[in-house]
C-alpha cells in the first residue's frame, strides 16, 4: 500500500514538475540579417517568400489615390525605418508640441503631433502660439519588435521592481486597439504609447502617412480643422496586418561580432555593467513561452517568437533622465518628462542620438543623461579616458 502511495505521489509530481523540468532553456533570437549579405531574413514566423512580400508592402510608396494625407510625415514605413536595412532606424524626426499650464500638459489643438507635410499647402500644420512645449522625436528601430511584443507584461513589472529605488522604471498599460482597447503593458514608442504591433502599425499608418484603417478610421485634422483628402475612410483594410506581420517576423539587430570580440570591447562591456548602465539598458530578456496568449487575447506567441533570449539593452520602461520631452501621450501626466529607455541594440547604426536626435556624439549623449541616471553617469565620469573609450567601443559593437 505504501508502495502504491509513493507511485501515486510520484505520478502527481511528475505531472506537475516534469513538464517544467523538460522545458528547454531559451534559445537565442535569430539575427535580422547577416552583416556579410545584408539580406533581411525571416525569423521563422512566416516563410521567406511571405516575409519578402510583407517587406515590399512596408517599403511601398503611398500616393494620394491610396489615401495619403491630408497631413502626413512620410510616404512609406521604410522612409523612416530603413537604416541599415528595411525596418531599421533613420535620421527622420517627427515634431510634437503642446502647452504646460503649470500642472498638466495640454495637447496642441489637433493633437501633439505636428505633421511636416500635407497634400495641399492650405492643410499645412504649424506650431501655433502658446504651445511652448516642443520636441523632435527620432524614428525608432523596429527590427526584433516581434520578440519585444512577446515579452510578458509581468516580466516588465518584475524588471521595474528589481531596479533600485530612485531609478525604478514606470510601467504603464495602454489600449490594445484590436482587443477592444483592453489594456496591456506598454513597450513601443518613445512614450511607450503602444503594447501591440498591430496597434502601433495602425497608429503610424494614420499619424505618419495619413492613411486610415479599421483600427484608426478617421483622418487627422490640420491644426484642428477638418480637411478632406478625397478618399473614403477607412482607406486601407489590410496593410496594417501586413506591416505587423513584417515586424513580427524580423530578427533582432545583429551585433558587430568582430568588434565585440576585441579585448577593449569586452572590457567596455564589463564597464557598462560596472557603472550601472545595464540597470536600465538591460542586457537580457526572455520572451513568453510559445502558446502564451497575449495582447488581451488578440495574439498567441508563436514557436518562432516564444522562449527566446533577446539582448535589447533596454527595459521598455519610462524614466526621467532629465531630457524631457514634456509631452504626454497614453501614460498620463506623470509621464510628462519621461521617455522609454532607448533600446541600444543596433545603436551603431545611429549617429543622431537621444529622443530628439539632437546629440551627435556618444560621450555627450551619455553626459546628457541626468535625473534618475545621475549616479550612473557620475560613475561614468569617474572612469579614465581609456575606460571611457572602451565603453564607447562596446556601444559601437551593438
Amino acid at each position: 500500500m505504501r508502495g502504491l502511495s509513493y507511485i501515486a505521489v510520484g505520478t502527481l509530481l511528475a505531472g506537475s514538475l516534469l513538464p517544467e523540468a523538460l522545458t528547454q532553456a531559451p534559445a537565442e533570437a535569430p539575427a535580422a540579417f547577416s552583416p556579410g549579405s545584408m539580406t533581411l531574413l525571416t525569423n521563422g514566423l512566416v516563410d521567406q517568400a511571405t516575409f519578402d512580400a510583407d517587406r515590399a508592402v512596408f517599403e511601398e510608396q503611398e500616393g494620394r489615390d491610396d489615401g495619403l494625407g491630408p497631413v502626413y510625415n512620410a510616404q512609406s514605413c521604410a522612409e523612416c525605418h530603413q537604416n541599415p536595412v528595411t525596418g531599421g532606424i533613420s535620421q527622420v524626426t517627427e515634431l510634437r508640441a503642446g502647452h504646460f499650464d503649470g500642472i498638466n500638459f495640454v495637447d496642441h489643438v489637433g493633437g501633439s503631433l505636428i505633421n511636416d507635410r500635407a497634400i495641399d499647402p492650405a492643410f499645412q500644420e504649424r506650431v501655433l502660439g502658446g504651445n511652448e512645449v516642443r520636441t523632435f522625436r527620432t524614428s525608432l528601430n523596429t527590427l526584433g519588435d516581434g520578440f519585444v511584443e512577446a515579452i510578458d507584461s509581468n516580466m516588465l513589472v518584475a524588471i521595474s521592481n528589481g531596479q533600485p529605488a530612485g531609478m525604478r522604471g514606470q510601467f504603464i498599460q495602454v489600449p490594445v486597439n484590436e482587443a477592444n482597447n483592453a489594456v496591456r503593458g506598454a513597450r513601443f514608442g518613445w512614450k511607450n504609447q503602444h503594447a501591440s504591433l498591430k496597434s502601433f502599425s495602425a497608429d503610424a499608418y494614420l499619424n505618419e502617412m495619413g492613411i486610415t484603417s479599421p483600427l484608426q478610421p478617421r483622418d487627422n485634422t490640420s491644426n484642428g480643422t477638418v480637411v478632406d483628402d478625397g478618399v473614403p475612410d477607412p482607406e486601407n483594410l489590410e496593410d496594417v496586418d501586413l506591416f505587423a506581420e513584417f515586424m513580427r517576423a524580423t530578427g533582432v539587430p545583429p551585433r558587430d561580432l568582430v568588434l565585440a570580440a576585441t579585448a577593449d570591447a569586452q572590457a567596455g562591456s564589463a564597464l557598462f555593467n560596472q557603472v550601472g548602465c545595464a540597470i536600465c539598458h538591460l542586457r537580457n530578456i526572455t520572451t513568453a513561452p510559445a502558446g502564451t496568449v497575449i495582447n488581451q487575447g488578440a495574439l498567441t506567441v508563436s514557436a518562432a517568437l516564444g522562449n527566446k533570449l533577446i539582448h535589447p539593452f533596454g527595459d521598455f520602461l519610462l524614466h526621467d533622465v532629465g531630457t524631457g520631452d514634456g509631452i504626454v501621450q497614453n501614460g498620463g501626466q506623470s509621464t510628462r518628462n519621461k521617455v522609454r529607455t532607448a533600446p541600444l541594440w543596433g545603436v551603431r547604426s545611429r549617429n543622431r542620438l537621444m529622443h530628439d536626435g539632437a546629440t551627435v556624439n556618444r560621450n555627450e549623449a551619455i553626459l546628457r543623461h541626468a535625473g534618475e541616471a545621475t549616479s550612473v553617469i557620475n560613475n561614468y565620469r569617474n572612469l579614465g579616458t581609456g575606460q571611457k573609450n572602451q565603453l564607447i567601443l562596446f556601444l559601437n559593437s551593438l
Partner: protein
Amino acid sequence: MALAVMALAAGLVLSRAFVRAPRVERPRPPSPAAPEQLRPAVVDADFSPPRAGEAVTVLYRAFGSAVEMEGEGAAVGDFNGDGSPDLAVGVRASEAHAAEINDPLANWTVQDCASSPDSHVAKTRPSSPAVRNREPLLAVVHGFGRRGWRDPEARQAYLMKGALEGPWRGRSRDHYPGLDAPEARALGDVLAGPGSRGEIAYWTGERYVCRSATAARSAR
C-alpha cells in the same frame, strides 16, 4: 520499477493532455501612478545665492583644475527647467589646460555662442573650433534634487565659449516674451548677460543658446 516508470510516463502524458491549459498573459489591474511619480521632481528647492567659497568648490567638483573662477558674480536659477537650482559662473580656462577642456571624452560639454541660431550674436563672435588657454567662458552646473548645484551629485556641466565677460544673472523667462516663438524652445530660467549689449542664454533641452536680449524681450 516498471510501475514507477509507467507512473512517470502516465503523469507526463496526463500533464500535457489535461493539466496544461493555454498560458495566458495575466492581465494586471489598472495601475495609477505611484505618489512619487505624480509629485514634482523637486520640492522646496534652495535657490539661495552661493556663500563664500561655495562656487569655487562646485567648479572644482565639475571641472577639476581645468577652469578658474573669474570675478565674484554667480547666477542661480532653474536654467534647465527641472525644478532644481543650477549655478552659472564666469570662468577662465586654466593655463595649460585647454587640451583637457577640449578632450572629446571630457566630463563636460563645450558649446559655442558663435554657433547660436541668432545671427546677431553669431556675427559678433569669433568662431574657433577649440577653447584656448586663458579663454573666458561661462560655466553652468546643473543641479540635482532639492539641494541643486550644492548636491555632491550635481556634476552635469557646460562650458560656453564666446559668452560675454562679466557677471551673469538669472531671470525669469517671463521677461522675454520673444522666447515664446516656435523656434525658441526655452525650457527654464534665462541667463542674462552683462553690460549694455544685452545678451541672454537659455537651455533648449540639449544645449544653451545665446541670443540678443532685445529680440528676446519683444513679443511676436
